[in-house]
């Protein structure tokens, strides 16, 4: 893990309650500098509460926050001068234009260099519509304007809450490239999201939160090491033999999944490295069973569900492909912005 000195953001024992409901229960985050950090969690896990605490909108009940290596306490608002944030949905004056809204925002907090507003309007592709009132903007345009607002002061640390919300596929790709470029230039990007596929293609480091606690944190490759899956499609009649055969190689998921096309076949899921797909296929063939389908990959969703105690989606669990070499497939899946799973990798 990165040494504490190189952390762009750290929280220790962060607690926050809303009345009797505990939203954060001792959150410990360690976000290294210069990375894209994916902050994942199911709805209600405490992601937005964390974002609000990091931006001074809420005050913690207990615990500490360090921003860019220095403590961030109540009243220490100038720590936020080096931080850009988009918390929840982007908020603007509806009767002002996009440009006027950015100018108004630039007047608050950290000083903004001259010409920065125009530069950002260009960056987020809103220059043509800069004089239009924000009330006429689509959700995606507002989101892009929100990202521009977060970048106004050229922050060292960028906190983005669900930045892909409302963006079209091209907008998502552009946003992703921008964030990767910012990370490459030494800035730290903290992205809160429930879109696993999006985080999988964007983040270097992932933190998973559930019920107000961090349940796993580490580099994406580290986390996915044990999350390899090979799925085989066999006929229902061969199911028992196939299961027994495959159990000899690696653990097999308890329930067999029916295919979406409604056929008599079933999918068996074997927890094995994707590189062992051929071995799985060979074992089945050795037992006289011929698979009518075979897929392999590593899956953040599996890890996510395991850690957060969630249920697999009805579409199945193999939505994203996490191996670096296979990220293009996941990018296509993530471009939908709806969070729908993409096609499993072959």
């Amino acid at each position, binding site marked *: 893990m990165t040494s504490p000195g190189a952390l762009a953001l750290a929280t220790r024992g962060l607690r926050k309650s809303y009345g009797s409901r505990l939203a954060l229960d001792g959150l410990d985050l360690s976000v290294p500098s210069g990375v894209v950090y994916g902050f994942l969690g199911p709805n209600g896990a405490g992601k937005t509460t964390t974002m*609000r605490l990091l*931006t*001074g*909108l*809420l*005050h913690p009940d207990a615990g500490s926050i360090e921003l860019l290596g220095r403590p961030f306490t109540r009243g220490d*608002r*100038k*720590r*936020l*001068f080096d*931080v850009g*944030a988009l*918390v*929840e*949905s982007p*908020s*603007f*004056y*509806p*009767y*002002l234009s996009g440009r*006027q809204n950015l*100018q*108004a*925002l630039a*007047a*608050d*907090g*950290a000083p903004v260099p001259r010409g920065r507003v125009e530069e950002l309007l260009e960056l987020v592709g809103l220059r043509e519509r800069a004089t239009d009132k924000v009330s006429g903007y689509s959700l995606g345009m507002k989101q892009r304007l929100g990202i521009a*607002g977060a970048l*106004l*002061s050229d922050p060292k640390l960028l906190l983005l809450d669900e930045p892909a919300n409302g963006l079209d596929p091209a907008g998502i790709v552009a946003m992703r490239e921008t964030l990767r470029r910012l990370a490459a230039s030494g800035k730290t990007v903290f992205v809160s999201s429930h879109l696993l596929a999006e985080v999988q293609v964007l983040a270097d480091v992932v933190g998973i939160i559930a019920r107000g606690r961090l349940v796993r944190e580490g580099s994406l490759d580290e986390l996915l090491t044990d999350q390899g899956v090979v799925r085989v499609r066999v006929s229902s009649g061969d199911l028992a033999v196939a299961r027994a055969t495959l159990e000899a190689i690696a653990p097999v998921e308890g329930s067999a999944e029916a295919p979406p096309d409604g056929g008599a076949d079933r999918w068996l899921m074997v927890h094995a490295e994707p590189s062992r797909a051929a071995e799985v296929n060979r074992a089945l063939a050795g037992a006289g069973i011929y698979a009518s389908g075979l897929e392999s990959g590593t899956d953040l969703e599996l890890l996510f569900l395991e850690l957060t105690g969630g249920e697999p989606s009805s579409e199945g669990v193999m939505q994203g492909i996490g191996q670096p070499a296979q990220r293009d497939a996941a990018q296509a899946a993530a471009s939908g912005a709806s969070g729908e799973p993409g096609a499993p990798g072959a």
Partner: protein
Amino acid sequence: MRVFVSGLRKLVGRPASFVSVGLLVGLLGLILIAAATVGQNGSGRNAENAKALLTFPGAYDLILSFMFGLGGLVAVIYGAAIAGSEWSWGTLKNAVARGESRARYMLTTFAAIVVMLAVGLAITFVAGLGLALFSATIAGISTAGVSDADTLQRLPALAARGWFAVVEQASLGFAIATLARSQLAGIGAGIAFYFGETFARIFLPDIIKYMPFAVAQASINTGSGPAAGGGGGGGFIDPLPADTALVLVGVWLVGSLLVTVLFTERAEITG
């Protein structure tokens, strides 16, 4: 300074600013035109009363009463709309997340409102004066009294008192909407407070005369020159002396801003 200038720019482009001034000028115009029509075509006591309203320097009285009477209610609504929208639209959240001081942000926003109120009242006065002269002319009334030296001498002090009273009323709307953390709830509660105090004058005159709208009204009634001031129900209470009321207007103004700042500083911004 840049926060204040930005706040001013935001208000200049805001529909609520135009609507507020337009409402005051429009209603004042309707009253003046109606008085001119009655004065010109009517007969008897009604016509005489209508002509009296349009006769200068007394017409100044009508204009100022209207400005500082209905203007007070409009100011409550305006102040509530501005403060409430900061919460409802989430724009306060943006400023705080950028490291802006909550107290400074709210105070500079209110300072911009104070300037806008001065501009709005000035526009209303000039437009009202023009409409009064026009109405007097069509009613065949002499406008010679418009340059009455005694009245003109007293006008600046009266305008300053009126503006201060309107500012205090705007600060109440501002504070109420901040506490409500909502534009709609703030406006509703502001209006309810205004009329609630007016009706309460009937039952609790000794207490209500110290309340914010009553002192605002009393602070303008200097007894010298045009007796400006508005709001209903004024006849039920024995108003405080104008100078005492003026001090209380200041107390209510400072109190409202203090409540606004303290609440905003401590608030958990979740919207």
